[in-house]
C-alpha cells in the first residue's frame, strides 16, 4: 500500500502527468482512426522513449493503451466503422442511437462507461492481485474453450430474427479463421499452396474490410449530404448520474467481464466486449431494444473494453505473460528499457510496477477529460459532407490492413472482404456475426484441442470439474431454449412466414 502511494507521488509530477495526458490524447486519436491500433502506436513511439526513464516511457504507453480503447468507439458510433477491433460491438447500438440524433449522448454513454470500467477494474486488479494472478495462471484450456463457446452461443441470440443467417455468418467467420498453418497438426489448411495464406488471414484485414470498406460502399448515398446525425447538438452530453445508477447492471457485468477475461491470457478485449453485450442483453427485461440504440448496449461493451486494462496488467506484471497485442508489445518495450519482465519484476523493479499501476488510473481519468474536449473536433469533422470523410476511412483501412504485417497481401483480403461485406449487407445479412466467428473461432479451436491434448483425447475433460459442468449445462440450455423459441416462432408464422431479417445497424435505420 505504501509502495502504491509513493508511486502515486512519483507519477503525480508534472512531467509524468504531462506524458500520460499526451499518451491518452494520442491514444484517443489513434483509436478513432480505423486501421490504426494501440500496438502500432506504441511501437512507433518506442524509439522516442529510449531517452526517458522506463516509468516515463510507460506513462506514455499506458496513456495510448487506455486512450485507444475509448477512441475506437467514436468511429463506431459516428461512422459505424469501429476504430479498433474491440469497438466493433459498440456499432450495434451506438450507431442506431446516433442515427436517432442522439450521437452526443451515445458518445457520453461510451465515455462514462469506459471510465467506470477502467477505474473499477483498476480497483479490483489492485485489491486482488494474488487472486487474479492465480486465476490468470490456473485457467485451463478447457475452461477458456467453454467460456468462449458460451459467448458464441449467447451471441447467437443477436440474430434471433434469423438464426439461420446468424449461424451462417458465424460459420463463415470460423472458416476464415481456420485458414493457415495449423500448429497442432503441423499442416496447412485452405492455403491453396500460397505462402501468403500460410499464417492465416489477417484479422485486421477482415475487420477493416467488413467494417471499413464495406461501410463506405454501403453509405455512398450519404455522399453529398451533410450528416444529419449530429445536427442537434455539438459536443458530448454526459448521461445523468441517476440514469447511470439505474443501468448499474450493464456496467457491473461489463466491468467484471473485462477484468476477468482481460486477466485470462489469450482472449482479450476483442472477445470480452461481445460476451458482456450478450450477457447484458439476455439479462435485460427488454432485449428487443438492443440493436436499436439501447444505452445498455453501449455501456456493456465499453465498460468491458476498458475493464480489460486492469485485468491484463496482472499477468503482464506478475508473470510476464501478455494478455493481448498491446501487452505483448509492452513486454518487449520493458526489455528494451533494460527491465526483465517475469515473476521477478515485482521484486526487482517494484517502483516501476506500482508506477505503471498509478499511471493506469490517471490515464483512465484523463481519458474522460480529453474525450470531452476532443469529441467536438470529431463531430465537427463528421458534420461535413461524407465525401470529405470517406476517402480518409478508405486510406486508413488500407493502412490498417497493410500495417498488421507490413505486407500488401492483406490489403487484397481487405478489399475482397469489403466487397463481399457490401453485397451481404445489402441483402440483410448480419455481417457482424462473421467478424464474431473470426474473433472467437480461433480461441475456441485452440483451447478445445489443447484441452484434448491435456486429457489425452478424453472429451470428459469438458465436464470434469463443477465450474465446467455448469458452463457446459448453460451452453446446452441456451441452445435448447433458442431452438425452442425458433420452433415456436415458425409455428406462429404459419404458412406465410414474414420476410424476417436479422438486426443489423444499417437496417434499423430503414
Amino acid at each position: 500500500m505504501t509502495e502504491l502511494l509513493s508511486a502515486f507521488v512519483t507519477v503525480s509530477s508534472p512531467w509524468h502527468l504531462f506524458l500520460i495526458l499526451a499518451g491518452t490524447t494520442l491514444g484517443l486519436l489513434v483509436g478513432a482512426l480505423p486501421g490504426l491500433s494501440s500496438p502500432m502506436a506504441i511501437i512507433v513511439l518506442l524509439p522516442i522513449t529510449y531517452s526517458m526513464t522506463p516509468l516515463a516511457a510507460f506513462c506514455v504507453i499506458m496513456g495510448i493503451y487506455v486512450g485507444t480503447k475509448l477512441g475506437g468507439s467514436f468511429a463506431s458510433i459516428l461512422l459505424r466503422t469501429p476504430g479498433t477491433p474491440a469497438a466493433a460491438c459498440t456499432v450495434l447500438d451506438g450507431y442506431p442511437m446516433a442515427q436517432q440524433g442522439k450521437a452526443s449522448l451515445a458518445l457520453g454513454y461510451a465515455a462514462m462507461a469506459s471510465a467506470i470500467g477502467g477505474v473499477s477494474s483498476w480497483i479490483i486488479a489492485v485489491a486482488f492481485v494474488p487472486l487474479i494472478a492465480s486465476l490468470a495462471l490456473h485457467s485451463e484450456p478447457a475452461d477458456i474453450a467453454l467460456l468462449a463457446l458460451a459467448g458464441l452461443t449467447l451471441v447467437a441470440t443477436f440474430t434471433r430474427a434469423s438464426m439461420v443467417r446468424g449461424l451462417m455468418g458465424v460459420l463463415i467467420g470460423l472458416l476464415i479463421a481456420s485458414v493457415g498453418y495449423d500448429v497442432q497438426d503441423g499442416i496447412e489448411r485452405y492455403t491453396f499452396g500460397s505462402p501468403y495464406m500460410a499464417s492465416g488471414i489477417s484479422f485486421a484485414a477482415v475487420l477493416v474490410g467488413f467494417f471499413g470498406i464495406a461501410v463506405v460502399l454501403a453509405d455512398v448515398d450519404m455522399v453529398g449530404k451533410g450528416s444529419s446525425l449530429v445536427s442537434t447538438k455539438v459536443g458530448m452530453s454526459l448521461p445523468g448520474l441517476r440514469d447511470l445508477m439505474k443501468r448499474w447492471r450493464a456496467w457491473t457485468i461489463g466491468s467484471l467481464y473485462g477484468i476477468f477475461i482481460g486477466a485470462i491470457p489469450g482472449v482479450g478485449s476483442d472477445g470480452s466486449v461481445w460476451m458482456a453485450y450478450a450477457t447484458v442483453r439476455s439479462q435485460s427485461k427488454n432485449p428487443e431494444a438492443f440493436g436499436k440504440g439501447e444505452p445498455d448496449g453501449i455501456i456493456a461493451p465499453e465498460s468491458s473494453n476498458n475493464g480489460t486494462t486492469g485485468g491484463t496488467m496482472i499477468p503482464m506484471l506478475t508473470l510476464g505473460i501478455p494478455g493481448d497485442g498491446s501487452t505483448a508489445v509492452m513486454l518487449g518495450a520493458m526489455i528494451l528499457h533494460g527491465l526483465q519482465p517475469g515473476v521477478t519484476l515485482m521484486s526487482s523493479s517494484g517502483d516501476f510496477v506500482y508506477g505503471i499501476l498509478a499511471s493506469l488510473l490517471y490515464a483512465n481519468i484523463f481519458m474522460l477529460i480529453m474525450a470531452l474536449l476532443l469529441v467536438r473536433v470529431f463531430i465537427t469533422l463528421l458534420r461535413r459532407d461524407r465525401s470529405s470523410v470517406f476517402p480518409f476511412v478508405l486510406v486508413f483501412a488500407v493502412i490498417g490492413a497493410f500495417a498488421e504485417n507490413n505486407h500488401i497481401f492483406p490489403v487484397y483480403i481487405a478489399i475482397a472482404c469489403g466487397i463481399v461485406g457490401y453485397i451481404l449487407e445489402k441483402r440483410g445479412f448480419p455481417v457482424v456475426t462473421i467478424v464474431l466467428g473470426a474473433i472467437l473461432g480461433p480461441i475456441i479451436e485452440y483451447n478445445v484441442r489443447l484441452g484434448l491434448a491435456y486429457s489425452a483425447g478424453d472429451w470428459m475433460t469438458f465436464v470434469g470439474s463443477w465450474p465446467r459442468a455448469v458452463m457446459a449445462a448453460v451452453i446446452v440450455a441456451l441452445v435448447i431454449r433458442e431452438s425452442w423459441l425458433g420452433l415456436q416462432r415458425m409455428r406462429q408464422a404459419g404458412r406465410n412466414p414474414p420476410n424476417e431479417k436479422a438486426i443489423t445497424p444499417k437496417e434499423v435505420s430503414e
Partner: protein
Amino acid sequence: MTFKTFLKTASIAALIATGSEAIAQDYPSEPIRMVVPWKAGGGTDSIARALAKAIEAESDGTVIIENISGGGRVPGHLAVVNASPDGYTLLLNGSSDISSSQVFREMPFTLDDFTCVGGVYSAPLWIVVNSESGYETLEDYTAAAAAKPGELTLGVTTLNSPDEVLGKAVAEKFGIDVRIIPFNGGANMKKALLAGQVDAGIFYVPVMLPEVEAGLAGVIMGGGSLENVRYEEVRDAPTPADLGLEFEIGSYRGVLMPAGVSNEVLAEVSALVEAAAKSEIFAAFGETFGSAPKWVSGPEYCDVIRSEMDTFEASAE
C-alpha cells in the same frame, strides 16, 4: 513504423532537393532497413531493436526496423531476397527459423539467395520443468516417463519445429513415450508450465529465465551449450553432445543480406555489424535479456544454418 518511414522519405527527399549525392561517402550514408519477419514485441524483434540501437551508436547512421510478419515468414524473407544487394537492406532472423522452414515447409527461396553477414546472438533451446514437479535432472524426468509410458507431457511450440525435433530426439534416445503437446508459442507454454499443466516444456533461451532464477522452474537440458546464460546454475545442464547426440539446436539470431553483394559492401557491413554485436550497448542488452551475445562471422553463421538443416532433414526421414 509510419514515423520512421516518414523520416526515411523525408531524408531521401532532402537528398534529392539539395542535389547532393550519397555516393562516395562512408557506409552508411543512408538509412539501413532491417527486416524482421516477426511481429514487434517478441524475442527476435527485441534482439533486432537492440542491435539497431548499437549500429546507430557505432555509425551515426539510422536503422529502420521493418516487421514484415505473417505469410509463413515468406514475405519478410522475400523482401530481402528481392532487395538491391547494396548493404542497405538487412534481414535479422533466427538460424532455426530459416533452417526449419527450408526443411519442413516449401519456401520460394533457399539459403543461396542470401549472403550471411554474421551471427549476433546465440539462443539455444532448453528443456524446462516446474520446480514443484520434483524433477531436478533429465534423468528424473526420463525415469518418471519410463515408469508411466504415455502419461508425461512435453510442451513444444508447434509440430514440425526445431523444438519438436529436440523433444523427439531425447525421447528416442531414452526410449520413452511422452505426449508432445503443441502450444502455439512460448507465452502459452510458459503459463501452462508455471501452472503445472504440462510436465516439461522446450523453450528458447532466455524464455523462463526469470522464473528459473526465482526457483520456480528448473532447466534439465540445453539444446546446445548454455555457457553464455547469465544464471550460472544452469550452465552445466547436459547438452545433446553429452547424450551422444551429434547436433545443436537453437535460434542463432544473425544478419543476412541478399545474394550478389560485392566484397566491398560485405566487408563494410560485416565490420559495422560485428562492431555493433561486440559493443557495450549490445552486451548490456544481452545481460538484461538473459545471456551474453556471441558473434560469429558470416561463413560460420551460414554453416550453423546448414548444419541445422542436416539435423532437421535427418529427423524428418
